[in-house]
Each structure stands twice: as structure tokens, then as C-alpha cells.
């Protein structure tokens, strides 16, 4: 039967919407670019070095672990590059090279690959890595100390550290508009709120991120901070200050929304985001750390499997 044509046989459905894993993560990278460009404008060439090293070493670790574990090469899916770029955005511009390489190792290998690779990570890999590194090398995450040799045209004192140390009267030293435009010290890609909002809006419009998580996260922060501020304005800063400082906006748009560690149903997504926002303010206001975003993200990552149990009843099911 040589004249037989060799047809492709596969299971239904025979159409596909055309989306794919690489496209998803490349788009997250694209959405991160405005914030990185803003970071480069404020922090200059050292920031570029950190970002480049973070992306390349993350890809390197991914490649290495694929070779060692004899698994198909998954570098092309863009997930490692995405982790690298988000991680780079969280690091200070003066981070030493060994810390960057160690951070990406923690993110890609410990945060993602040992759990089974893409889709299996219980925590946001970048947040997990920053949590470990910021405890291990505390001084290197002290933005005031790290960025002391930089010349800034704005108040170069980490607003959240200042708030922790001196109380809410320091709020007057910062203009909210300036903070929104990135006039503060912090992670390379996490200072410019405007750029992060643009990136986040892009992801939501393209359907890569659902609006529920960022919105409820931001609302959680605003509501909780307002309550604290109303009860004791002499002890706690106002909501807008919390919204525009530290890792808040990168957390809302890029960290909390990571696919594998966030819920998929609407109510769980709203809960997940809101709890993240509430936790952040609790840690900032009554906890020991100036910025609570990273730990809040890890906590909500933990409740993700449980939160997703709240779901609409499947058809025909009574209980």
C-alpha cells in the first residue's frame, strides 16, 4: 500500500486558540521592560549589569539543571528568563555579582526545578529567592547602604526604612508624585510605580494576568493602611505612601500573579490578593521588617491550594 498518504492522526479537538507557553512569559518580560528602563534611568549602568547577569544566570541554571537531570531543554519557554528578569528588578543596583548568581540559583533551582519544574512551584521563585537572600545577606539588601555612592536628585533614604525608624512624620519628606515616578531608592525595577502600572495594564489587557489579583491586592493594602492610619495617625503612615513605596506595585502586578502559585477561580483570586495586601500592611506596621511584600507573597502562595477549593459546583454535583 505504498500509494497510501501518511496522515496525521491525533485526538480531538483539532483546533487550538494558538496560545503557547513561551508567548506567555515573553509577554511578561515585555511588560517588565518599562519598569526596568525607568530603573536604568535612575540607577545607570550598574543596574543594567545586574539585570543582564540575573537573566543570563537564570537561563544558565535552567540549562544546567536540564542537562544534569537529563530532561528536555526548557530554556526556550522563557520561564527562566522571566524569573531572572523579575528577580533582577527586585535586587539593588549595587548587588555584587555573586549575590545575583546565587539568587538566580535559589530561584530557578530551589524555587522551581526541585519542585518539578514549570507549573509545579508552590512559591513564586523570585520572591522565595529574595526572601532567602535578604535574610542571608541583610546588608546587601539595605538599599541605603548599597546605594550610598549613587548621586540622586531626590531624597535618597529608603522611605519604608525611614518610616520604620522615625515614624510617619517622614512622610512629608517625600512627594507622592515623585514616588510614583520612581524617585526613591529600592530594587532596580520596583521603584517606578507608573512604569509598573503600565506593564501590569498591558498584561491584564492581553489576558496574561487577571485583574482580580492586582486589584484586590492594592485594595487590601489601601483599606488596611487606611484603617491603621485612622486609628493612630501619629504611628502609621497613610495608604498612598504604602502603595507607592517598596515592592508594593511590583508585588501586585508581577509577583502575586505568578501562574503556578496563584489561584484560578474568581473568589479565591480576590481573597488571595486581599490577604496579600492585608498581610503586607500588618508586617510593615506591626512587624519587624520595613517591607512585608515578599513575606506576604510567600504566605498567600501557601494558601493558594486551599483557596482554590472555593469553586463553583460542577454540573450535576449535589455536594
Amino acid at each position, binding site marked *: 500500500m505504498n500509494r497510501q*498518504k501518511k496522515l496525521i492522526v491525533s485526538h*480531538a479537538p483539532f483546533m487550538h486558540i494558538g496560545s503557547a507557553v513561551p508567548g506567555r512569559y515573553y509577554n511578561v518580560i515585555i511588560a517588565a521592560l518599562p519598569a526596568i528602563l525607568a530603573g536604568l534611568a535612575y540607577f545607570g549602568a550598574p543596574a543594567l549589569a545586574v539585570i543582564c547577569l540575573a537573566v543570563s544566570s537564570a537561563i544558565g541554571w535552567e540549562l544546567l539543571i536540564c542537562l544534569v537531570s537529563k530532561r528536555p531543554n526548557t530554556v526556550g519557554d522563557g520561564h527562566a528568563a522571566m524569573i531572572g528578569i523579575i528577580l533582577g528588578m527586585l535586587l539593588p543596583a549595587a548587588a555584587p555579582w555573586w549575590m545575583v548568581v546565587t539568587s538566580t540559583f535559589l530561584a530557578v533551582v530551589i524555587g522551581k526545578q526541585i519542585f518539578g519544574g514549570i*507549573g509545579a512551584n508552590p512559591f513564586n521563585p523570585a520572591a522565595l529567592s529574595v526572601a532567602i537572600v535578604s535574610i542571608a545577606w541583610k546588608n546587601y539588601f539595605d538599599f541605603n547602604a548599597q546605594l550610598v555612592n549613587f548621586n540622586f536628585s531626590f531624597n535618597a533614604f529608603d522611605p519604608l526604612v525611614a518610616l520604620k525608624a522615625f515614624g510617619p512624620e517622614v512622610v512629608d519628606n517625600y512627594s507622592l508624585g515623585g514616588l510614583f515616578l520612581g524617585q526613591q531608592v529600592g530594587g532596580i525595577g520596583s521603584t517606578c510605580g507608573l512604569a509598573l502600572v503600565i506593564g501590569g495594564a498591558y498584561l491584564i489587557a492581553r489576558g496574561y494576568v487577571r485583574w482580580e489579583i492586582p486589584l484586590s491586592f492594592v485594595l487590601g493594602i489601601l483599606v488596611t493602611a487606611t484603617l491603621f492610619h485612622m486609628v493612630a495617625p501619629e504611628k502609621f503612615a497613610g495608604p498612598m505612601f504604602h502603595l507607592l513605596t517598596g515592592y508594593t506595585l511590583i508585588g501586585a502586578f508581577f509577583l502575586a500573579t505568578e501562574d503556578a502559585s496563584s489561584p484560578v477561580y474568581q473568589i479565591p483570586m480576590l481573597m488571595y490578593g486581599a490577604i496579600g495586601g492585608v498581610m503586607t500592611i500588618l508586617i510593615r506596621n506591626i512587624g519587624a521588617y520595613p517591607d512585608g511584600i515578599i513575606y506576604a507573597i510567600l504566605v498567600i502562595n501557601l494558601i493558594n491550594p486551599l483557596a482554590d477549593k472555593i469553586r463553583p459546583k460542577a454540573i*450535576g454535583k449535589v455536594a
Partner: protein
Amino acid sequence: MLSKPFFGYAKPKFHYELLSTTLPQPATIALPATVTLLLPREMGPTPSPNLKPGVRVKTGQRLTWNGDPMPAVVSSVTGTIKGVRAHLGDYGNKFTAITIEADPKEELDEQFAEATGDITLQTLVEHLAGAPGDPSLETIANAQTPIHTIVVYGGDTDLLVDTNLYVLKGRMAELDQGIKTLKQATGIEKVVVAVPRDAFQNFDGHFSADVQSVPNAYPYGQPLMIYYQLFGRILDQGETFEGQGVFFLRAEAVASIGKAVIDGRVPVEKTLTVMNKEGRKKVVSARIGTPIGDILKTMNITLDDRDRLIFGGPMTGTAVYSEDLPILPDTDAILVQDSREIVLTSDYPCINCGECVRICPANVPVNMLVRYLEARQYQEAADLHDLYSCVECGLCAFVCTARIPILQYIKLAKFELAREVPAEEE
């Protein structure tokens, strides 16, 4: 290939085909040189002397393996049996393929005409086996629990397919006769005709049956979804439609019954939708058993290596491996896909993006389900993650970012679970 719209926030929606009021005449496929009929049983010992190569058969003649009246298949042509061989169908179903060389000089078998004076269920079962639309009335005759409702679905169960709605709109008299005959022969009083909502006005009150509408959006025409809409239930593990007292028929199957009674002979022409690589469709009419290749030739469709040939619609059809395969009584459509249009599935793990969960019409937690199915934990999938609520529409696999063959996993799981139960009972 379909592509994801740039602004991908809203989830995609699909609607079934709605035919215009002026129905085109179906293109008729010329009598093929040979037809192949599938007798739904394994080859066995002692075949009947009437089922040997060289034996002449008439159009409408019943072919059986031996003296037993069933299973049977009705010859769609007059001609000479050329070969009888084993054929393996989907899900390991075994058939006997009977190839008949067609003779242009048609002779009609009169057995059914003689029986039409007094139509019993047995007559219908025996003579309409393998008629267009596949009225498998044997199920009613052999049902353990009495069937209380016959559901006739007037629309098509899959996207892009016109066949059944075409039959519903174009052959209303035959359909109505079919419903009457069915009621009379089976004694089942409750016959529900489900029609797409947009066409509801045209049919309400036109049949001697209860006409009900279902939404025109995909997948509300899927049998499992219709069952849920009409009865508020799903088919749980180990349950079947007939076990629940419900029997599903295509509009075309009922029209076939009606036509058989009106004409006094069993219809042999199957209506089907053929779609070429450019997406242009045509309703054609062909003898059951016509090789696909003959139809493609008539429609000027050329097939190349690595193309895909599909029986049924794009969401739930079956890809076939050869253009020599025949048109079956339940082949509602033939789709031809160019190799460049084909998106292959991948072995990537689920990345938990949630697209499947948001599009699922049955609220199945697909993201969790697929993790269990990949690990072959079928019973856990059924117990914990609503495997049996799935209506098998394929929308989850359609939107899956990781391109996981989710529908295949689900069907495999249901198949494996169904296979396990009898093994335990033994």
C-alpha cells in the same frame, strides 16, 4: 490556524452553525466503485453462505454474519461481495468489514417493503441497522431498564457541522413521520426534540413531540450537556443513557425511519458536511460505505502527506488514518486540515494559568483534574475532581496554553474506569 486575539482578556465564545432559510440542494456523490460496510461484530466461525466473496446482494438487503438476526448491516448498493475481513475501530471496537463491488444496475430488496404493513420495533431494529444517522434501536429493544424518553437532537453536536440542522430544516415531514413511527413501534410516549434556540420558532408545534430549545452556543448541543439541561443530571461513573431510561437519536436517524416508512425501503444515502482546507463547506449526500477518497475527489480536495482527515467536527471528531475508510452511518462531517494548520499537542505540564477553568461550561476544576489524569489516578480524579461532570466538549484543550491533550486524557480516564468495573465484578 486560529490565533489568539491581541487583546485576550475576554474568553472566546463559539456558536453552532445556523443555516439560512433557503437550503441548497446537497451535492450528490456518484455511485462509488466499491463500498465498505461495517458489521458491528467480530468475525467468527461459520459465516453464513450469503456472506462470501462472489455473492450478489441487493440494495437494502440485510447482511448478517450467520443465522442470528442481529447484528446486521443493510447494503447500500447492489453488487457483488468482494471481500470480508476484520476491522478494528475506535476504542478497540471490533467490526467485520464487508466490501461490495457496486453494480450501476440497481436492484431493490423487498423485504422491508413487505414488512411495512405492520411496523414493529423488531422490524425497525432489523432493517434500519446501519441506516443514515445510525438509529441504533437495538438499544431500546435490549434495554435493561425501560426507556422512558427518546431525545431527538435537531442541531449538530459540534461546531462547523451543518448536517443535522440541514436534515431538520429540509426533511420535516420525514422527521415527523419518523417520530410517529417511533412512538407507535416502541410504545414510548415521551419524545423530546431539542432544537437550537435561534431556530426554535420555526419548529415549535411542528412535530408530534415535545419541542425544547437549547442555547445555540457551543457546547450546549453536546449529548451530555443536553441530558443535563433536560434532566438536571449527569452520567455518573458506570451509568449510561439507556441505564437512565433515556435514548438519544440524531435528527437524521429519525428522518431515516420516517423516509423508510414513507418510501417502503431503507434509505442508503447519508447526508454529510464536507469542509475543505480553505474552510469552505458543502453539504453532500453519499451512499453509506463510500470511501472518503471518492468524496474528496468529487469535491476537488487534494490530500497530501501530514494532512489531517477528520470524521465529525473540529472539537469532538475523530481523526482517521486513511482515505480508503468508508462513510459510516454516524459520519456527520468530513473535515480536511492542511498540515500547516495543525497545532500539535505537547507533553508540557500544566502551568496553572486557569484558561481551562474559566472556559469550562461544566465548572470542572480542569487544572486539578489534569494533574491526576497525567498520573493515571483516574478513580481519584472521578471522586475528587468531578471527572464525570465533564461533557467532553474539548474547550479546555482548545484554550490550553501548554497544549495538553486534556480531552484525550478525560476520555481515556472514562474509558479505563469503565473497563475496570466489569473486571471487579467478575
